[in-house]
């Protein structure tokens, strides 16, 4: 079995000799040349996704005013941010809604506007302290005048996700888009065979410390993402069937590009954020060739009935992404139209961009400093009576 190390691949990138292809391109290369030869010839496979990721947000340090303030409540463009950390540090979450515009504007929009270089109104209150006497401040900030601004997303790039439909008689507005009554449509969210964690199903190369493309800038895998579930049921090829691993990502928002970070509004649900993520996968050996050559016909997910809102949602059928992406699937003997929620077009743009960055020697690969957990328990939030703290 041929073997290449991260260092050897980085040397090739440095000398401009690395062979880099996207996770879609490698499929045909393997068909033509076979696994062994591909492992020798290809060094890096780029993967990408561009989908709505609610668990997104940005830390900002505003800098100190004169006289200074220890902010206790803060609003950015009338959207509340969290400032229960140090005096002028705050976290603006993507799904937080505007207090004046409701669901038409939220934290996701603040982040997009900030990255686009726009001025953001800042209003903050404080009780005032001896060392921070100011009680109120009203000003404007932008990405050029704050100290730090970094995206820190607790959960990004879900390794697979369920498809959604609605068997009830009423229309449902969800984070999976508008679900028509009587299972009249099915929505899904993936970049399929181009998706980062579907190309490295056992996290051999993607781990804590992995350098990534996030929102047009460099970033890193900071930790396992929230609800990381590596024990999800897997197919014969090792690819999980349904939501599995997740990544907590961090990246410099000041360097980001609003082409790759866009706010989203889901009717009667709220605000979210489209985040563009690209992750390079080193072709260390033949196993990584086989893993990255996965195709949409070999990646499966479950179609869930979102009209069931208590207990686990029933699985109506298992389906491949090839079938979902064909535009319709068979459901209860009926042909039902399908619609994507994640932009494959943008994901392809990112995978191609990352490929060019690596070929030009602008992006080097990093070996994980620690692996993502291989097992984890997903806990439920039990409802206990007041006063019952024990069980």
């Amino acid at each position, binding site marked *: 079995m041929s073997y290449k190390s991260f260092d050897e691949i980085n040397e090739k990138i440095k000398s401009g000799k690395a062979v880099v292809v996207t996770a879609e391109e490698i499929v045909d290369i393997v068909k033509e040349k076979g696994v062994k030869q591909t492992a020798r010839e290809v060094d890096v496979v780029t993967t990408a996704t*561009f*989908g*709505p990721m609610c668990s997104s947000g940005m830390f900002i340090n505003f800098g100190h005013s004169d006289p200074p303030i220890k902010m206790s409540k803060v609003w950015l463009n009338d959207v509340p941010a969290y400032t229960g950390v140090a005096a002028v540090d705050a976290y603006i979450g993507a799904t937080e809604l505007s207090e004046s515009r409701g669901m038409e504007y939220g934290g996701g929009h603040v982040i997009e506007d900030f990255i686009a270089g726009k001025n953001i109104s800042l209003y903050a209150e404080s009780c005032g302290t001896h060392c921070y006497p100011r009680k109120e401040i009203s000003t404007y900030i932008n990405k050029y005048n704050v100290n730090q601004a970094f995206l820190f997303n607790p959960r990004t790039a879900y390794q697979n996700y369920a498809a959604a439909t609605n068997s009830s008689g009423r229309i449902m507005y969800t984070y999976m*888009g*508008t*679900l*028509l009554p009587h299972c009249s*449509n099915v*929505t899904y969210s993936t970049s399929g065979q181009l998706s980062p964690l579907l190309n490295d199903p056992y996290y051999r190369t993607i781990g804590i410390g992995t350098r990534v493309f996030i929102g047009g800038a460099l970033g890193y895998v900071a930790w396992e993402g929230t609800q990381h579930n590596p024990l999800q049921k897997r197919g014969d090829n090792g690819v999980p069937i349904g939501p599995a691993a997740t990544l907590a990502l961090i990246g410099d928002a000041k360097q980001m590009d609003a082409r790759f970070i*866009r*706010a*989203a*509004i*889901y*009717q009667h649900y709220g605000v*979210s954020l*489209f985040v563009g993520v690209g992750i390079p996968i080193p072709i260390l050996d033949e196993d990584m060739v086989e893993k990255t050559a996965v195709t949409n016909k070999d990646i499966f997910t479950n179609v869930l009935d979102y009209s069931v809102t208590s207990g686990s949602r029933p699985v109506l059928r298992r389906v491949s992404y090839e079938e979902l*992406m*064909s*535009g319709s699937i068979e459901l209860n003997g009926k042909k039902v*139209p399908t*619609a*994507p*929620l*994640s*932009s*494959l*077009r*943008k994901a*392809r743009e990112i995978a191609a961009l990352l490929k060019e960055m690596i070929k030009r020697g602008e992006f080097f690969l990093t070996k994980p400093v620690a692996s993502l957990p291989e097992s984890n328990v997903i806990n439920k939030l039990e409802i206990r009576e007041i006063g019952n703290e024990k069980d």
Partner: protein
Amino acid sequence: MKKIKVTMYFPANIITKPVTYHLVKDYNLMVNILNADVSLNKVGKLVADIEGKEEDIDAGLAFVKQAGADYEIFSKAIIWDEESCVHCGACTAVCPSGALQMDKNDWRLTFDREKCLMCELCVKACPLRVMRIKNGELD
């Protein structure tokens, strides 16, 4: 029955002609005046909904021209701001006519205006708010 929205323009020399009266009386049209700006020695402008049989509407509009006035048909339209679109496909989940579809090769959103039923479902289903209703003059 068909319903259209028109703006009629009356040059100063014909504002004494009872054009609207003839549309109702001779062409059996229901005319609902929404806005009127008519005064002596000025071009008059009248915005109205006109409802009736298609052939009556056609004949009525021909009469408007014949009388020396002019008109423009208003129509609502869905405006797709393609520049701002990320081509996610969420709008295709609700489009009942197939006017909005994903191109299966390059995964770009395609919009066939001929098929659009103006149901406006896409306007609210679009997470980027790039589908808008335009009230304007269309040919």
